[in-house]
């Protein structure tokens, strides 16, 4: 007896649990790898899987085995030259004369790391887990969607301003032809009959003529009674609301790179920017990212320089805001662009400059941007910049600011910043 069974639809992904177990066991190493990946990757390239490597000695499962030494006598195939009694030097490493070293069981484990790929989902899980955020992927964050109305054919109901004249009259004409048809046909038959009578020289007052004329008159009355236009004929232009494909946004990353912004703080900032990017990615098809770094002077740089340049100095925040304003005016002024600004700083600024920042924001920048977030990465007390920005926040609903102490704060802060705005 034989069975032929199609199992292809069953038991898919049976190893998923074992895979998970593996990831769970090496969580620390994988998290490290993800952390390194975040540092090494550009913000826009974050949503891919990642190759993770773990030192082989860590994943090795030990077993008893023999090591080299003592007496080994092995049989090998493919002799071409040797005679019994020949002697030759020991080959330096394995191979050659002896075929015993089984990789997993030999004394020297190979130096290659155990490398495997995290899927995109797994990568994102680790990314978000680092932010202490188990279910973030599921959480639907607030989405600001603009609607635009667009024509979508014709409708039988609507407001008078939307009446489509051509469609309505065309309908009326059709109705009139349809409804008046039989009467008109009857009338024209009677007319022919009448003319036949005239041809036979029947007098005008012949009762048959009178009768026909009466009928024709009646029919014409009926035809005339068909309304030229009826509510039934009315067609309205149909307009529906569709989400406006706000296809493009520009995201400004503004970072203070004064001496106090060390690697850790930059890393925290980067994670915040990544989160913002992922968030915007859900709404916009295309996102430009502009990096502005500043100490006493501001410059637009590429991402690599943004995070890794060591150039540093004092702090004049307003220099960055001036540059921001300039970039918006030059390249992103059209209404097609949705501008978002994320500013990260440790909050240290020159005293007089903070007031200037407030003015720049209030008068120049805030009206031009969708949203402006300021995160202060510090564990110290609020500084003057914070105080000035608090005043900006009081006047602008689309300005938000929070403090981040550790990476674990990033997500809660992010949520706080991007919670649904009361309209």
């Amino acid at each position: 007896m034989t069975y032929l069974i199609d199992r292809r639809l069953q038991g898919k992904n049976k190893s998923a649990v074992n895979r998970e177990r593996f990831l769970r066991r090496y969580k620390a190493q994988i998290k490290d790898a993800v952390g390194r990946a975040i540092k090494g990757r550009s913000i826009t390239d974050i949503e891919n899987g990642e190759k993770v490597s773990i030192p082989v000695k860590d994943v090795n499962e030990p077993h008893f085995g023999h090591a080299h030494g003592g007496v080994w006598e092995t049989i090998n195939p493919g002799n071409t030259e040797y005679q019994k009694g020949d002697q030759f030097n020991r080959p330096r490493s394995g191979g050659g004369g002896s075929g015993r070293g089984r990789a997993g069981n030999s004394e020297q484990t190979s130096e290659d790391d155990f490398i495997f790929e995290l899927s995109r989902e797994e990568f994102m899980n680790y990314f978000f887990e680092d932010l202490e955020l188990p279910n973030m992927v599921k959480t639907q964050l607030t989405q600001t969607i603009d609607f635009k109305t667009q024509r979508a054919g014709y409708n039988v109901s609507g407001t008078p301003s939307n009446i489509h004249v051509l469609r309505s009259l065309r309908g009326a004409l059709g109705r009139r032809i349809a409804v008046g048809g039989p009467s008109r046909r009857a009338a024209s038959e009677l007319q022919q009959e009448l003319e036949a009578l005239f041809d036979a020289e029947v007098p005008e007052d012949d009762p048959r003529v009178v009768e026909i004329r009466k009928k024709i008159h009646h029919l014409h009355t009926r035809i005339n009674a068909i309304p030229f236009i009826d509510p039934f004929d009315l067609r309205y232009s149909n307009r529906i609301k569709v989400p406006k494909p706000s296809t493009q946004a520009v995201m400004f990353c503004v970072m203070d790179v004064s001496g106090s912004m060390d690697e850790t703080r930059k890393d925290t900032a980067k994670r915040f920017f990544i989160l913002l990017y992922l968030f915007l990615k859900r709404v916009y098809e295309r996102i430009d990212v502009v990096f502005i770094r500043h100490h006493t002077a501001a410059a637009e740089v590429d991402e690599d320089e943004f995070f890794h340049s060591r150039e540093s100095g004092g702090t004049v925040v307003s220099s960055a805001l001036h540059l921001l304003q300039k970039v918006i005016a030059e390249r992103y002024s059209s209404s097609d662009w949705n501008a978002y600004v994320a500013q990260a700083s440790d909050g240290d600024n020159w005293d007089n400059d903070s007031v200037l920042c407030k003015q720049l924001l209030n008068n120049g920048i805030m009206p031009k941007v969708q949203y402006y977030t300021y995160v202060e990465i510090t564990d110290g007390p609020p500084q003057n910049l914070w105080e000035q920005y608090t005043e900006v926040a009081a006047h602008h609903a689309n300005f938000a600011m929070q403090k981040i102490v550790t990476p674990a704060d990033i997500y809660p802060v992010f949520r706080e910043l991007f919670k649904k705005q009361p309209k």
Partner: protein
Amino acid sequence: MPDDRTNPRALPEQSEWTFDLIEQAHEEIRRVAKKFGLDTYPNQLEIITAEQMMDAYTSVGMPVSYNHWSFGKHFLSTEKSYKRGQMGLAYEIVINSDPCIAYLMEENSLTMQALVIAHAAYGHNSFFKGNYLFRTWTDAEAIVDYMVFAKNYIAECEQRYGIDAVEDLLDSCHAIQNYGVDRYKRPAKLSVAQEAARQKEREEYAQSQVNALWRTVPRREEEERNAPPPRFPPEPEENLLYFIEKYAPLLEPWQRELVRITRKISQYFYPQRQTQVMNEGWATFWHYTILQELYKEGIVGDGFMLEFLQSHTNVVYQPAATSPYYSGINPYALGFAMMSDIRRICENPTEEDRAWFPDMAGSDWIKTLDFAMRNFKDESFIAQYLSPKLIRDFHFFAVLDDDRSDKLTISAIHDEAGYRYVRQQLAEQYNIGNREPNIQVWQVNTRDDRALTLRHTQFQRRPLNGQAQEVLKHVARLWGFDVRLETVDSTGHVVSFLDCRREKRHR
């Protein structure tokens, strides 16, 4: 495409398989296999996807298995090399069960499906059913059910005691799984129902035995004075996992059951480890013979045969020892050559064959081959059947590597003087007793610190590998107290030892 072959049952020349065509091919293969007298368990052919093949491949080849990170590790590495195209998947996995389950991967061509059916469903299957080791050690009827039992039991333990606790224990068991087999005793066959019923009983009994072992009730004084403490265990025990299951003082009943499960699985695979050359050789010989027969009968055509021969040739390729591709002797190549050679000796013996194999030369090849399949393992099979012709064909040569000598010596080659020596050495090479270090439970210090001493009896002065210390930690975790591993030379003197001390407070 016109089909000019005359046999009305001929398979169409096409690459794509369909269920009907597989059935048809299988029917022909079954018929031919029967003609050659292959005795098999009923077959169950299962079509699976590449991913499912990777699943099966990485969970010890069983259709069900418990969950463990190391299976995930194998899956990840298999997946990686498969996706990169570095490795074709093993296109056959066959399970020693009744019915015998053979997997057919959906990506295979019709030719490959036929090859796998002939190879797995008739070759391996008949080997499982016929070979004495499998008959003695494995219970084909019960294995799948047992794996289900094991999976459920372990899942239950994970719920009750936590994944970490279970994982730690399994790690330790896996580390010495090769030392979880009985080599000489024969296990009783049990159905799953009996297994489950006895499992509870076993827990209670085992626990009571443990207590008896460590009984601290003061003995009568004269007894104490006169008799030296009895040695425990009275005889060295080769089955480490068995010993731990029965006597480890601190294991909970569920932990003992887990030790037992890993031991049972290890025992189940023990025959496979001892019959690699024979099993693959037998299966390869039969897929080759059966498909050749189908070609002769006109059931399969030239295109089919070309594709088949290409795969077959790849499978039995043996690179020379000097080749960069050399990674030891290919069991498919050696096994296939030996099986074919036995047939040749029966059918067309030379003078040399008559001298070396007087009983075999000229005998009925099917009977002779069947006898060989049933009654040997790799070691004895090679010692018995490797012919001078094959030694010449393979250009076998023996290299002696003695660390007391500066140089390697060619101790024998494929010549008249070397045949017996090469054959004997090659047989030794397949002796699991030589391949794996001989490590046994030697003694337990029952009076004092309960330390366990293992004894490694050196073979040819070969040292243990660098992982021994790590393995010892696992043994100590299972045993719960200090563990020592002594290495003794051939004269019984301890030449070195490793220690693994436990914290006094356990776990």
